[in-house]
């Protein structure tokens, strides 16, 4: 891929992934602005609980439905548009239930269940599932030319995409049936014993709660599985490109190898790679340090520059020898301050 514009023209969805603290949200927004400059109607979806996109745009909050921010663009984009949204995963899960539940009683019963309350609160895959669901809905139903999904940072970057599948296992019929209809079967001695121990360990309340929860979810499983399949199809299609964002630390190379391996394994299209916060372009030649701290600062910057150069070379060699398609690769220099306006984002967009 020889230019970012080609990539933005080619893809309908760009998903940015990366560990925390690498400026992923800023880059997602900048990609969106670049898309708008090409005349596209762009939507940036950010699932970042730290509300970074809102902060960098100088806004307090973003809503659950797209907010038109085109008027914030300082340069007149030829008919392009820039929208953003931050999904409220809780309300989305409620919406989802309403849609799936066959009766209001069914919905209400599920909502009152203790396990369900925890289920929506915890990171058990529900939030991730809802976010991907939202993405799918937007891509299919709204007329955006380009949607950029900024995934939340996590240690294992792609765990975001595993979560819904883990959730899906909840619905696997053979397990649930085994559990829900023990009376229908002659249970083995072992199974009886196991259920007995389980009850002793967890108390009666948990078992009845769990059965109620499982029955309610079991009724929803067909609709759920269908929706998940749709999301999977979208993620694997040519329309979607995955964009890795990283910072040039010394332990970056192993992380990148791990990530690229995972992307390939999942069959996702790895289309672009940004190394953010690079200091290699800073000029150290005209600086003669006068005092101790200045000398330290200069040495530190030179140290980081050397490390950065070596890390990037290593990653570049790895990518060249391990990728069938060559992803678009770009270094973004370290910024001198935090981003607080659309104008700042424009500068970043210029560097893409």
């Amino acid at each position, binding site marked *: 891929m020889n230019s970012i514009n080609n990539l933005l023209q080619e893809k309908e969805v760009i998903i940015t992934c990366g*560990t*925390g*603290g690498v400026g992923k949200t800023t880059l997602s927004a900048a990609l969106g602005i670049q898309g708008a400059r090409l005349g596209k109607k762009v939507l940036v979806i950010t699932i970042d*609980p*730290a509300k970074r996109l809102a902060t960098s745009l100088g806004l307090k909050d973003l809503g659950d439905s797209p907010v038109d921010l085109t008027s914030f663009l300082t340069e007149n984009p030829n008919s392009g548009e820039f929208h953003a949204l931050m999904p409220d995963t809780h309300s989305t899960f409620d919406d989802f239930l309403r849609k799936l539940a066959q009766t209001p009683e069914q919905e209400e019963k599920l909502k009152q269940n*203790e*396990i369900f309350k*925890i*289920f929506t*609160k*915890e*990171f*058990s895959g*529900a939030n991730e599932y809802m976010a991907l669901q939202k993405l799918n809905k937007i891509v299919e139903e709204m007329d955006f030319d380009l949607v950029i999904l900024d995934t939340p*940072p*996590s*240690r294992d970057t792609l765990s975001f995409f595993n979560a819904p599948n*883990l959730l899906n*296992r909840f619905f696997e019929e053979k*397990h649930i049936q085994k*559990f829900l209809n023990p009376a229908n079967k002659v249970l083995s001695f072992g*199974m009886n*014993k196991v259920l007995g*121990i*389980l009850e*002793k*360990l*967890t*108390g*009666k*309340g*948990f078992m009845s*709660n*769990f059965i109620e929860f499982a029955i309610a979810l079991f009724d929803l499983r067909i609709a759920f599985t269908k929706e998940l399949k749709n999301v999977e199809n979208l993620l694997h299609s040519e329309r979607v490109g995955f964009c890795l964002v990283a910072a040039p630390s*010394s332990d970056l190379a*192993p992380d990148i190898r*791990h990530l690229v391996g995972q992307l390939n394994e999942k069959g996702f299209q790895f289309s672009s790679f940004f190394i953010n916060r690079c*200091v290699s*372009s800073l*000029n150290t030649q*005209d*600086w003669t340090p006068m*005092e101790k*701290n*200045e000398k330290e*600062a*200069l*040495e*530190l*910057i030179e*140290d980081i520059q*050397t*490390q950065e150069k070596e890390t990037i070379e290593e990653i570049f060699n790895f990518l060249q020898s391990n990728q069938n398609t060559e992803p678009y690769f770009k270094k973004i*220099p*370290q*910024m*001198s*301050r935090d981003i607080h306006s659309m104008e700042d984002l424009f*500068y970043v967009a210029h*560097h893409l």
Partner: protein
Amino acid sequence: MQLVQEIQSKKFLFIGGKGGVGKTLLSQAFAQGYSDQSLKTLHIEFESPFRKPGEETKINNFLTSINVCLEPAFFEYMEMKIKIPRVAQLFAKNKLIQYLTEATPGFRHLILLGKTWHSQHHYDRIIVDMASTGYGIAMFHSTRNFATLFRGSPLKEDADAIHDTLSDVKETAHLIITLPEEMPLIEGQELSQSLHKLFPKNPAYWLVNRRFPEIQGEKKNHLPLFLESAKDYAIQRSIQEKLKVNSLLKNKDHISIPWLKTHLKTKNKITDELKLHLFGGAH
């Protein structure tokens, strides 16, 4: 160094903060520092994809590091609860039970935390490297959630006991690691608030990692986003850092660690340097 000593007096140390702020290296430096003083120390990582599940590594006579993962931890826990190993094995290996442990929200967290908590009988100090902010908070919440879910069961008693230990200012230190930059500081504050809600009587400690050397210069109001001169960058970086830390941490007492030169240095060498900054030279 006084803060480090205070932290060191407590049995448990939970280290949290945004990804990429240096939690792993710093938690290792703490662990090394403890073990240098002949404290039998356990360093815990949760579900690291880079190590084998349950992998236990003896680093020196006083220091062991373990990658705590669901499956082995669950098995151990069941052995402890059920007492008859053969029955425990039957139970833990049962397909339905395996499925329930994976599918029940928060259960994973409780088991991992339970394993951590039970380790206190075998070690003087336990240091936990929490994967990310959200993960850590979800994990701490799991004890509350399960106390509600498992009313009147042995699991609830454990969940309550774990929560009590985490709340106890004498037994547990919560340390938030941040960088002197806006976003990590803000996320650190959010973590601090969540911890405060969970453990109001056990305020968290702060550590600001990777401080840039302080250099004199003028603050410019209309600064370009991308600078060309390393000197300009250094001056602005130094000024901004001070402003950010002062405005976001206020006068809160915190541990401060300088940005270390790491090129061509091994991980062990870096950990040693960090240890020196935390604990000082003389033991």
